[in-house]
């Protein structure tokens, strides 16, 4: 069980976020759900790079080679992922504020009626 649990948790978080996105009645809430979806990718990436009994590949307080270390490449990828995720959230929130100004609502269903 332990050797797939983290992957399953990542998949569960992703699906939960998708459910929230699809049923959301408020665009700001939908952006929060998108942030949840993004966090599933961090969990998946870091779970792939983990090694039992290893420690972080940071040698400021560790003699190189004295302990096994986990995979640094996926950690660097996750770091990029987090920063890009935050900027996407900010940009989407700015778009929502524009929508609120132009249409006076942040409910996606009402927005569809406005256009039709």
């Amino acid at each position, binding site marked *: 069980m332990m050797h797939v649990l983290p992957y399953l948790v990542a998949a569960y978080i992703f699906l939960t976020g998708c459910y929230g996105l699809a049923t959301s009645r408020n665009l700001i809430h939908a952006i929060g759900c998108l942030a949840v979806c993004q966090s599933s990718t961090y969990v998946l990436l870091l779970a792939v790079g983990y090694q039992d009994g290893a420690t972080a*590949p940071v040698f400021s307080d560790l003699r190189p080679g004295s302990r096994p270390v986990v995979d640094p490449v996926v950690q660097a990828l996750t770091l990029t992922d987090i920063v890009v995720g935050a900027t996407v959230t900010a*940009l989407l929130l700015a778009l929502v*504020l524009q929508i609120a100004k132009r249409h006076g609502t942040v409910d996606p269903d009402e927005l569809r009626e406005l256009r039709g």
Partner: protein
Amino acid sequence: MNRLRLVLLAVGGTGLAALLVAACLGLPGFGGRSHPYGARAVHASLTRHTANTIASVNFDQRAYDTLGEMSILFAAVLGCVVLLRQARDEHRAQPQPAEVARPVRRYALIVLPVALVTGLYVVAHGQLSPGGGFQGGVVAATALHLLYLGADYRALERVRPLAVFETSDALAVSTYLVLGAAGVLAGTSFLANTLLPYGTFNTLSSGGTVPLLNAAVGMEVASAVVVLLANFLDQAVEIEEEHGS
């Protein structure tokens, strides 16, 4: 309509869930011993005297990716500034001065310098201990906004010349590009870490160009977050629409 959408979601979600579970069962087991890329990255980092392997991957081995990431951040902030600018039918209302309880004010004013120093420390030690430009930059930018919590928005506006932060944002991106191009001029390739001596392992100046690129990213992230938050704060606190428009 709504029920149809839910049914569609349930069908699609179940299919996706089944595929994801199948994929999870096919992945190499959690905590396995085989990480070929990781072992090579750690080796490369140690030969270049960079104590923090993640910083080495970000600013040396995959520095080109970080350039792309910086451009995304820069473009996103630019987009936010354009989207959130003051429109013709809006005006700025002077926010009322806030009354903040004295202990909260004192706490904010004491923690502000501590947080700034912590942010700089996290940026400066990026190539040694956990941390780096991204983390430290966000902390330093957040620290500035303690002034909004401790006093009010007008106090923050007085110490935050936005034009300076916008300029330093662009300047930091250019610095990163110039450092990369310097590698080309020196006869190697773009963003190659061959310009500077690698220094002594586990000291502040070790790692060749890694600390410089790290500092450029720290400056860019800090300025970008300040500009981003300034635009959102303007919208939330100051800018109002004309009534009856």
